């Protein structure tokens, strides 16, 4: 698949899955998509190991855009990106955008075949809307 992949990371598996469900409803299976939530014990939190697995699942040669909810989700996603092989790390970005709306916007942009930078920019444009 040459469309940019989307990874959704939330402290809550329910939120991550719910956001992914919304993305699927919007764009069907037109993009690689993965979600992850919960700490390594399954409680609220995030897990670098699970984020790495989600990136792998949603991998696309066009790159992967990650949407995060807050705090540790971002730090753990940054850590996960650094642990990727260098040639992959360059193709993964974290979008500074609200997780649900950002995921839907990023996925819609990715579905249209836009490149990674455009996908990220579209998700982040949400921050400038009032």
């Amino acid at each position, binding site marked *: 698949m040459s469309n940019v992949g989307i990874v959704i990371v939330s402290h809550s598996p329910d939120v991550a899955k719910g956001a992914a469900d919304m993305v699927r409803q919007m764009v069907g299976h037109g993009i690689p998509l993965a979600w992850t939530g919960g*700490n*390594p014990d399954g*409680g*609220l939190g995030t897990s670098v*190991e699970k984020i790495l697995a989600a990136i792998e699942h949603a991998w696309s040669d066009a790159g992967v855009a990650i949407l995060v909810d807050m*705090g540790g989700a971002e730090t*753990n996603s940054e850590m996960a990106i650094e642990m990727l092989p260098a040639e992959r790390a360059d193709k993964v970005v974290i979008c500074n955008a609200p997780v649900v709306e950002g995921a839907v916007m990023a996925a819609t942009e990715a579905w249209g075949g836009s490149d990674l930078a455009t996908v990220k920019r579209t998700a982040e444009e949400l921050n400038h809307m009032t």
Partner: protein
Amino acid sequence: MNSNSASDSAVGNASFALDPRRARAIVTAIAQRLIAATDELTQLDQAIGDGDHGLNMKRGFAAVLAEMDSLAATTTPALFTGVGRTLVMKVGGASGPLYGTLFMQLGKSWPPELSRAALHNCLHDAVAAVAARGKSQTGQKTMLDVLVPVVTALGTGADRGQLRALAGMCAEATVPMEAVRGRASFLKERSIGHMDPGARSSQLLIEAVCDDLEQNA
């Protein structure tokens, strides 16, 4: 080598080469200290964070203890790197990458010969890596408010007792600070009046190291 053995003996001179056995003992002491403080760290984090710091640290350091046999089967820097990696993978909150980065950078920067100056440089690298990871600096009510001054004091000749006391004072000093990083920053001025849980866990880490060095001096 630093020839100033009077000040060197406080933390690390030639006779205190940190072989993997000693490194294992120190990491074990840190893990036990932090696991024992689970409830206290949780309570601190419930006041200004999301209440998971105690359990996250417990999960991470319990995993470190469980993997200790294989982690300690190598060199001291490899042990630290392995501890860091385990924390990154197992903690589940932002403290995983933060404490994980501390240990991974220790492993990366560990000097071939241990002097106070070499240890200071290595710890300085490790704390700088934590600051970069958290995009933070001192004065923002974080673990850096303990780690940075303690490492600086180590570089200027402080002994174990002074380092331990300084760590306590610095953790205390986060109480009146307003958080600008991490979850506590959502509370803005309401974060004032509570000790930062990360500063407290860093204080406990330093205490555990100082105590262990003292007992095995």
